[in-house]
């Protein structure tokens, strides 16, 4: 490995890969075999954090940033005037192994621009994973990007060596995709997803019969959508997301606030703020959907097409559904506890455990870590002090905002002033 050339390539190809926000390295259960290198059985570890506060857990690079396509939102697009580079298969293997041995990373996240053809590119991605597994006996985490349009045969092989596969749908609606990535067809994204989903199902079925069936993409597949590039509202975004979760057994959908990278007039211009707060609200909605037992239509629907930026989506739901409250902390079921603003799932479990010993009062709740600033308007507990006034939603919202020290407050006022 020539240090200088590798160094140059790494700078270019890490820079080009950074807009993919997925960094998860958990959920694999790939154990160390035959005293080889690595183990992915635990929770994924963030080994460091970038200065923008994102987890660094995988070596996230492109194999190459040469690309025959011209998607408007992408730095790698053909028409963009940038330095291009391409790694050799062995270089990626060496970097991964040496970073892993030093405990810098949990594994590799390899994506690529499309050079020559989808299959030609996918073949090389698969070659890296194969080499790591078979020659280096590497049991760390491998996430490969499925190249839209790659053949079923290659996708099948990819899943044998990778822990996770992903195709980024990037643009939430078909109309948006047509406008911004005219070379791409929605079917091309969906085809590899269907293939991977079917393989996972097939392998699971076989696994029941033959115990030694190799694991197929044990950490499942994920996708990413860019937020704020093509004018979709939150309702459309979350509907697409919900559709992908349900139809393709996705493990995760990532939402990535669009970082302006060009002067293309179809897109927000350079200098426009990244919609980080909105991105955060979408993630919160995603969590409510997956872990809190909400149906997406309770939060976003024809009447409410966008999430409120100044309050979180659960609070927003609660304010629209005051008839469901107050909830009695000491008797409510889990489902309803999870719906109280200011209560995370951890607090819900703590409450369920602790209330078996005694009825809980405000003091207990505070110690458990409940955000009473929000919760107090929605609950009663072992105390004769509770909100007795018949407050309207607006009043409650006002009180909560007045007392909140939301970390987003500043961002919020910045973003609002942009609109105003």
């Amino acid at each position, binding site marked *: 490995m020539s240090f200088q050339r590798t160094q140059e390539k790494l700078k270019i190809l890490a820079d080009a890969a950074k807009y993919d926000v997925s960094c998860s390295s958990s959920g694999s259960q790939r154990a160390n075999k035959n005293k080889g290198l690595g183990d992915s059985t635990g929770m994924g570890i963030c080994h460091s954090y970038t200065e923008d506060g994102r987890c660094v857990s995988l070596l996230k690079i492109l194999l190459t940033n040469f690309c025959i396509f011209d998607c408007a939102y992408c730095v790698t697009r053909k028409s963009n005037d940038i330095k291009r580079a391409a790694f050799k298969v062995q270089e990626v293997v060496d970097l991964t192994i040496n970073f892993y041995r030093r405990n810098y990373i949990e594994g590799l996240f390899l994506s690529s621009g499309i050079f020559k053809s989808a299959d030609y590119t996918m073949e090389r991605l698969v070659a890296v994973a194969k080499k790591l597994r078979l020659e280096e006996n590497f049991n760390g985490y491998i996430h490969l990007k499925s190249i839209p349009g790659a053949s079923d045969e290659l996708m099948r092989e990819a899943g044998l060596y990778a822990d996770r596969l992903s195709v980024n749908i990037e643009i939430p609606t078909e109309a948006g995709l047509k406008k911004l990535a005219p070379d791409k067809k929605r079917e091309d994204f969906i085809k590899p997803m269907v293939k991977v989903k079917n393989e996972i199902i097939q392998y699971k079925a076989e696994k029941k019969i033959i115990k030694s069936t190799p694991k197929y993409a044990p950490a499942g597949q994920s996708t990413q959508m860019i937020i704020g590039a093509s004018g979709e509202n939150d309702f459309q975004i979350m509907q697409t997301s919900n559709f992908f979760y349900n139809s393709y057994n996705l493990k995760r959908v990532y939402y990535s606030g669009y970082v302006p990278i060009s002067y293309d007039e179809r897109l927000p211009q350079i200098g426009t703020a990244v919609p980080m707060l909105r991105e955060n609200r979408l993630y919160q909605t995603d969590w409510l959907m997956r872990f809190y037992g909400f149906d997406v239509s309770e939060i976003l629907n024809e009447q409410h097409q966008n999430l409120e930026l100044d309050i979180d989506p659960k609070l927003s739901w609660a304010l629209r559904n005051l008839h469901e409250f107050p909830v009695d902390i000491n008797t409510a079921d889990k489902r309803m506890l999870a719906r109280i603003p200011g209560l995370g799932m951890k607090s819900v479990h703590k409450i369920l455990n602790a209330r078996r*010993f005694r009825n809980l009062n405000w003091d207990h709740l505070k110690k458990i870590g409940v955000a009473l600033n929000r919760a107090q308007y929605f609950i009663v507990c072992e105390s004769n002090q509770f909100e007795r006034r018949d407050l309207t939603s607006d009043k409650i919202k006002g009180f909560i905002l007045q007392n909140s020290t939301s970390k987003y407050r500043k961002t919020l006022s910045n973003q609002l002033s942009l609109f105003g």
Partner: protein
Amino acid sequence: MQEKCLIYDGTFDGFLSAVFYTFEHKLELVNIQNEFAPQNELFSENEHILTEEDKANRVWSGLKTKLTSQGSYQMYYAFLSEKDGVENVLLDYVRYAFSKNTKVDKDYSHPSVLKIAQIAKMVGREKHRMEAFVRFRLTKDHIYFANIEPDFNVLPLIQKHFKRRYADQKWMIYDIRRRYGLFYDLDKVDIINMDFPKQFDFTKTNSDYFAEQEFDFQKLWQDYFKATNIKSRKNMKLHVRHVPKRYWKYLSEKQST
């Protein structure tokens, strides 16, 4: 009744022996202290506790029937915090556990149970940080070496993780503050004490000790770290919350070379 001060040798077995002693002698007012901790012996009667493994085991297996497995590991974690006075909170916890017929470790409305759970959580966080922030550097004699300075005594907790993960390389993790380390020789993990050369600077990678390629890979890692950052999303407050400054000095990506 006068308070009795029980002084033990700093080990977990020693602590459990002290607990045994309080039950055996039906002591009520006690203060359990590590022999290395600064003491105020003037005001109390002192008793030096002998560490006895079988007594320790009796207490521990008794406790295990009184706690869920999470409860017993929380006790061990909290013990490793080495926090001033944690032994006495643990003792209170033990007494409460033995006084009840149901398992109490989820009863967060009891002050000692809550406190231990909180301390255990801090120790757990430090354990995870160390699993994340250990940076191995390859030495000239092919050992991947890392030094750490954790807030709590977490080496015993991270051993399994590193053994499982780095099964095919020799490695050593050394706790500079507590002056001992773990060494894996491709077969088993041993606890070791080491003398470092007087001039040895743990924050620097010196070519007298470290392999040549070590410099290349550190440089590549730093470049990677820089390249992967998105400037328009910069958020140092969040960054520092995840990677508190006190850990920076041993993180390769934070060194400027």
